[in-house]
């Protein structure tokens, strides 16, 4: 599939993300980090 084929999907994701309330975006970011740490064993240094 050419890069143009992905464009509508990316646009849909961006539109859905923009429509989300800020609090839900925070939850989504939190869940994404937990998923990265839990599934991919990502190690975050401090």
């Amino acid at each position, binding site marked *: 599939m050419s890069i143009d084929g992905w464009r509508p999907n990316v646009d849909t994701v*961006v539109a859905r993300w*923009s429509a989300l309330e800020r609090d839900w*975006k*925070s*939850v989504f970011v939190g*869940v994404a980090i937990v998923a990265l740490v839990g599934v991919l064993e990502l190690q975050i240094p401090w």
Partner: protein
Amino acid sequence: MSVRRLLPGVLALCLGAILARALALSVGVNHLLLAIALGFLVTNVVGIPDRLEPGIATHKLWLGAGIVLMGASISLESVLEVGGVVLLVVVGVTATTLLVVELLARNVFGLADRMGSLLAAGASICGVSAVVAVAGAIRAREEQIAYAAATVLLFDAITIVVYPIVGDLLNLSGVVFGTWAGVSMFSTGPVVAVGFAHSEVAGQWATMTKLARNALIGAVVLAYASYYARDGGGGRPSVRTLWDEFPKFVLGFLALAVVASAGVLSSAQLDSIENAYNWLFVLAFVGLGTEIRLGDLRNTGATPAVVVLFALLVSSALSLAVLLAVL
């Protein structure tokens, strides 16, 4: 909003966060307070370029995400142990602050009803977010919203400095200091910052207490909307308001607390999550610092500031006395 618009500001936040962390390690000052100071200095000395503003404005998103992740570090056992008492203190102090501001504003200082209500919501629940939420429900005027928001920001700036000093002078324990900050300071960001600047335990209790307080916003907006709707001056109140105004990241925080308590995550994973929220908080506090603009603070009216100062002194002293007696 496109990624290209947000990226410069988000990168500036990341840079500020790394700088704050590096400075904290070398000079031995708390990294969260340094992050706020850094943002404050940049915005008031050189100013924020327009192209950075959209990205820097995402700092509340990072604060919310950090709070969600903090759920993984919470000991449900200790929450259940003293949570009931803390919840009672939260409801008691919130109601007292709200009533004190309303009474002083209307009966002693003669402020307009709506102005008093905005100040009461900001002081008793969750700072500027509460001011904006209640303003929509009671159809407050633009300048009233600006005055009330500026007053809340003024006291956010003052309490960020004063609370840690008082906590050290009185040698308060982590639980007492955190709960005290959570129950009596105004906005969520400064509460989390001073809590973690004191200790990890204080930071967790400050955040949990503040979340419990924030969760009351729906009920307060509903009550104000109903009150002002009597004379046709407010929005149409509905039970849906309770859900609309409820801070949703509280649900993420609670869900993660349950997941972590079930033992699903290993200690290495929990460490990574803790590091992630520490970074998110530093990122958020650089942005929070950029919101403390001296020019805005000078716009605060003297009377609203005096009303809120009285209320803060009452709620702060009352809550500290109760917490020292019961915890």
